[in-house]
Every structure is written in C-alpha cells, then in structure tokens.
C-alpha cells in the first residue's frame, strides 16, 4: 500500500498517470454541469418568493461550497507535505489555492448579482455569508502572496503550509464570529432561508451541479499540479528527455 503511494508520488509517474486521469475527470464534470445547469435553469420550477432570480444558486452554491473544499484540500495537502515531506502534496496545495480563490470570487460575484434583486443592493455588509466569503478570499490572497514572496520553492512550500494550517484552525473561528456579529442586530438574515424548503425538483439539479463542480475542481487542480511538477522538476533528466522527445 505504502509502496503504491510512494510510486504515485514520484513526479514522472504522476505526470504520466495524471495525463490519463484528467479526461476521466473532465468529461463527467462537463456532462454533470451541463445537465445540472440545464435542469436548474429551464426545468426546475421557479421559487415561490424569489421567482426566477433564485436560479443563480446553481452557480453560487457550488462556488461557495468549493471555496471551502479547496481550502480544506490545500490545508490537508500542505499538512501531508509538511509532515511526510512529500513534494507532490505541496504541489497540490500550491495548485489548489488559485482555483479555490477563483471559486470564492465566483461565489462573491454571483452573490452580489443575486443581492441586487433580493436586497436592492449589490453588497450587504451585514450578511455573514458574504462576509465569510470575502475573508476567505483574503486568506487565499495571503497564502498566494506568501508563496510569491519566497523565491526558493522548497522554502515557499513549507512556509505556506504553516500558514495554511494556522488558517485552517482559524477558519471556523472566523466563520462563527461573523455569524455572531450578524446575529446581534438582526433577528434573521435577509435571505429567506427559513422559507419553505426546496422541492426535490429544485434541489436535485443543485446537487448534480455541486458534484459536477467538485469533479471539475479535481480536473483543474490536476492540470495545475502537472504544470507545477514540470516547473519544479525542470532540471531533472526525465523532463529534459520528454521535452526533447517533443511530448511535454
């Protein structure tokens, strides 16, 4: 078992294997997202209170979900890299950060677009979820800036891993404190989430999309890790050989 992981973690082997793996992620992702989005936008019935504008959740919620999942992926791989000195895990952490930041950005933008018809304003400072997402984006920025500030890749890996872990410990605290902040001066959130529960025909496409986006995240991260690995190993013989053979 350990041997298997060891082999998987060897850069040339990973590079070769990941090439075959990516289509297996990409195609299901495209199919699921296509199906989920179509069902969500055209087939699911409109919301009782929000009409058609609720349909943005089919992008917004997967985005928000993945902003969290990407951070966990980043923190867990960073931890593995730090404890077991596994370089591939560090590469995964490095690759997950910008993807996570983009999903966070998508969640924020779609949230703001949704906010306009719902709240009458693009941005509502008192909404805990918007605030959490914004702080999440800041955490990603911090992680990526620290990485960018350190020239040596090995050192950047380890330093950013410490940051990711401290951030992971703080994340629930940040989330909770923002909720608390809001709960004090507002009886309920502006979003009508205590309204009638979503019907199955509304919920199913959302779940399909969450699954699709998650698999897409896997494909994007794999793609980025491949580039990371190639860059990090650029002086190694296997990379030179491959480049000379013309199939990089």
């Amino acid at each position, binding site marked *: 078992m350990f041997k298997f992981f060891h082999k998987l973690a060897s850069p040339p082997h990973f590079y070769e294997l990941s090439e075959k793996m990516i289509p297996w992620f990409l195609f299901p992702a495209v199919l699921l997202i296509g199906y989920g989005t179509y069902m969500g936008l055209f087939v699911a019935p409109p919301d009782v209170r929000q009409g058609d504008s609720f349909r943005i959740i089919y992008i917004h919620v997967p985005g928000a979900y993945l902003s969290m999942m990407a951070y966990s992926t980043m923190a867990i791989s960073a931890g593995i890299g730090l404890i077991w000195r596994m370089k591939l895990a560090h590469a995964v952490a490095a690759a997950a950060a910008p993807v996570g930041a983009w999903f966070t950005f998508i969640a924020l933008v779609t949230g703001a677009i949704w906010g306009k018809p719902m709240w009458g304003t693009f941005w509502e400072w008192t909404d805990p979820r918007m605030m959490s997402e914004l702080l999440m984006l800041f955490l990603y920025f911090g992680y990526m800036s620290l990485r960018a500030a350190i*020239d*040596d890749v*090995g050192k950047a890996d380890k330093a950013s891993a410490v940051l990711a872990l401290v951030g992971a410990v703080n994340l629930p605290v940040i989330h909770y404190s923002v909720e608390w902040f809001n709960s004090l001066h507002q009886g309920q959130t502006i979003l009508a989430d205590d309204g009638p529960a979503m019907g199955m025909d509304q919920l199913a496409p959302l779940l399909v999309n969450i699954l699709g986006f998650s698999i897409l995240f896997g494909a994007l991260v794999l793609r980025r890790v491949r580039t990371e690995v190639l860059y990090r190993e650029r*002086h190694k013989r296997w990379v030179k050989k491959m480049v000379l053979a013309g199939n990089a």
Partner: protein
Amino acid sequence: MTTKLSATGLTLLRGERLLFRDLEFALNPGELLLLEGKNGSGKTSLLRVIAGLLEPESGEIRWDGKRVRSSRQEFQNAFIWMGHAVGMKNDLTLLENLQFEARLQSPSAAEFKEVLSRLGLNRLKNLPMRALSAGQRRRVALARLLLSEAAVWLMDEPVANLDTEGRKLVIDLVEDFLNSGGMVVMAAHQDVDVEAPTHTLELS
C-alpha cells in the same frame, strides 16, 4: 563501537544548484573534521545541515547511533554553534548577553569570570556589544564555547579576519578541547594547523 557523530548519503540542493551529493563522514571523541573548499562550495551549508539549520534533500545524520531527525533536541543539547554573526544583542552589554544565555544553559558564575579573563574580555564586560570590535566579538563567541558543556563545537570560519595572535588563540582552544575528548567540525577556507587526529572533507 559506534561512532559518536556520523552522516551518510547527505545531499543538498540550494535553489537550482547541487552543493554536494552522497556525502558521508564519521567522527569520534578527540577528532577534528575539517571542511575545506572555496567560497560558495557549500562548507557553511554542510555545517548548517549538521546543526539542523538546513534540511538536506536526503541523507541522515546520527548522534550516538540515533537519527538526529527523530531526536533533534538530544543532539542540540550536545553541540554548540559558532556562526558568522556572534548572535548577541548590540544594545545589551557583554555581561547581560552572556547572562541571558547562561539562564538557558546554566554555567556557574565562577566559570564566567574565569573564562572572561582567560580571553581578556573582563574589562569589556560592561560595554554594550556594539562598542566591541570585530576581533573582540570573535572572542566573545569563543567565550560562549568555553562556557558551554557541549561535546561538539560546530565552527564556521573561526579564524577568518583574525590576526596571528587571534588565530593562535582559536587553535589553542580547539586543541585543548580536542585533547579533553571533544569533537570539532570546522569550516575553513584557509589552512588551519591543529595538532589532533583530523579528517578532511574537500568540497568543490
């Protein structure tokens, strides 16, 4: 008998450059390990790897037969590090600096006085560190070695920028220490004549 301090398969990359590959050494009480080579050849880096300040790409250092990586603190109790910088605060006096370190390691006050006068530092002890010359600072670093009970001295260029008298002092101290069963790993880019069993590692 196991060797006291040994290394096997040490490989170190700095950025893009390979500094050394599959390096090994073994050192026993009373012996000196001399790291030679030009500037930038990786002498200091190797010394830093031994001290645990740098993580090698691969390879293992053993102290008393145990891997240093898994029992770091035990080895840190056993060696003392003399780097380029003295590692003392400029705003504190020599005495205050030494007292701070003594609180971490606890040598007795009597030793304090003896070591300072042996190195000719007694009359400087109430001056702030910033008032000391480069040569005097070097002596302070030596005082730290003498005050500790460490079994190994890791010395980075201990005789660089010293006059003949200063060099002789360093070499005398090292010889005394080796004769009493200590171990020294020393990086030096010039010849150092220490009369003791010596291993030499040439880095290029």
